[in-house]
């Protein structure tokens, strides 16, 4: 009940934030712009719409996850609104979980709106929609969950600006982890250990990228999908637990 109240309040806060609407409008404009770009290409315009559409949903969703996520806790501490929450019979992990769930709900609804925009464009151009598109949208949401948890983790101990930089760095590196591993395998000794360690510790965000499958209409087996979901949820749970441990020890001066 307490977690739910905090989640609903966070969701309400997000809804009253102009940043969210600006990003959402930009995302919809980008998805719509594929209609213009397709006139500049010869054939394969189905792929272009899907590529731009999924890319926009991913990019703007990540922007929302980072820029709203970093403020989830640090803004509460800076504005001292946290004083009236922690002084109630609310455990600190309940506060964190509520904030996380609130932003996750916002992202879920945003993704649904952006996906509706993409489906409308596809429908207008008579592009057939395959099940793999929805699977790709599902994994995009899982990626948002991880990025939000990363932003939340950093915002429990650093300022909003630093949290944004760290989260953005994790997002970029997270998409390059297969390269890290490949690079590490070409090295010896400590360099190899460090790069392989990074490969296993950092989130492998490329696992959630099914855009190639969608544009080439390749289906993803349910087993693979379940593995991706389990990985995403386990990684998110780990990040949230780590955030809780750090947050539990903090003094709110």
């Amino acid at each position, binding site marked *: 009940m307490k977690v739910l109240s905090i989640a609903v309040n966070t969701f309400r806060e997000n809804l009253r934030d102009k940043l969210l609407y600006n990003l959402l409008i930009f995302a919809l404009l980008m998805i719509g712009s594929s209609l213009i770009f397709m006139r500049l290409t010869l054939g394969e315009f189905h792929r272009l719409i899907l590529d731009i559409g999924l890319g926009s949903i991913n990019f703007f969703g990540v922007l929302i996850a980072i820029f709203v996520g970093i403020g989830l806790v640090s803004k509460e501490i800076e504005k001292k609104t946290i004083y009236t929450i922690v002084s109630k*019979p609310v455990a600190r992990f309940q506060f964190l979980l509520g904030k996380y769930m609130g932003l996750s709900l916002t992202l879920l609804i945003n993704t649904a709106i952006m996906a509706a925009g993409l489906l409308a464009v596809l429908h207008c151009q008579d592009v057939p929609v395959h099940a793999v598109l929805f699977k790709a949208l599902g994994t995009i949401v899982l990626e948002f969950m991880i990025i939000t948890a990363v932003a939340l983790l950093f915002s429990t101990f650093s300022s909003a600006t630093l949290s944004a930089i760290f989260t953005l760095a994790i997002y970029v590196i997270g998409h390059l982890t297969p390269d890290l591993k490949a690079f590490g395998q070409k090295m010896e000794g400590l360099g190899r250990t460090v790069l392989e360690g990074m490969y296993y510790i950092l989130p492998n965000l490329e696992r959630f990228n099914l855009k190639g499958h969608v544009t080439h209409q390749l289906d993803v087996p349910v087993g693979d999908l379940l593995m991706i979901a389990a990985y995403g949820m386990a990684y998110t749970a780990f990040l949230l637990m780590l955030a809780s441990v750090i947050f539990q020890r903090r003094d709110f001066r």
Partner: protein
Amino acid sequence: MASADEPVVNIQQLQKVFRVGFWGRRVTAVDGLSLDVQRGEVFGFLGPNGAGKTTTIKMLMGLIYPSGGTATLLGRPVADPSAKAKVGFLPESPYFYDYLTSQEFLRFYGHLFGLLGSALDKRIDELLDLVGMTHARDLQLRKFSKGMLQRVGIAQALINNPDLVILDEPMSGLDPIGRKEVRDLILRLKETGKTVMFSSHILHDAELLCDRVAMIMKGRLVACGQVSELINHGTTQEVEMVVDRLSPKGIEEVRPLATKMVLHGERVMAVLASQRQVDEALDVLRAHKAKLVSLIPHKASLEDLFIREAKGVQQATEVHA
């Protein structure tokens, strides 16, 4: 739950050391503080800015962790979130979710205490009425004045019908009308059997409201007790006497009795330090057929005590240095 004679707030040897700056220099904000707040009393927690009042209150509310010592609220350790189930808290210069209306704001805090449905609706109506904010129930908090925010802040502190209400500087930044309203509200809470602990550096308010006060300076307790006890302890009750038409001989007879004497035309003002000196001075007046204009005792105030203690702490610091 605390029994009737158990202190509502119990603080034992509480200590908080902060590490500040790049090198982590140790700064002691609260230093071995011990005090009790009894059920049903209005307790003033006084001290100058930076004395450690807010740090102590934050430790009570679980916002910061003590470096040493223990504290309980209603018989439960402060680290236990359930200790706050029957406690209301208003932080200093409160900041709230300004995108909420006062009604949404109180509903949110009600939910955090597990309050729901019509019981919560009723409680919100009662509280908005109590703090005089019914007219602003659908107004977002971002449009509120400081006084309005303070009132709605007090309402959130009371949403769970608490047994203990802790207010951190509730009068600070308010105009005289706002301060009076908060004072009246505190007295109303006392009438309904609640225990109120509030911090303040405005001594006049504390003097008017408190059954007992504790005074801290530089993180240490320097005085604790009933206001009347504290302000009379170690002070002499001076009396100011104003007289007309006292002859020069009479003036010379009064002069050795007075600690201070001012002549202005045929009017004489004398400050007398004890009842014996007052009696002797009155005998002189009668003998010289002078006219007594006024005889006013100088009432010692918490401010006198405050300044006296501050000087004591300053001197002790200098000697120590």
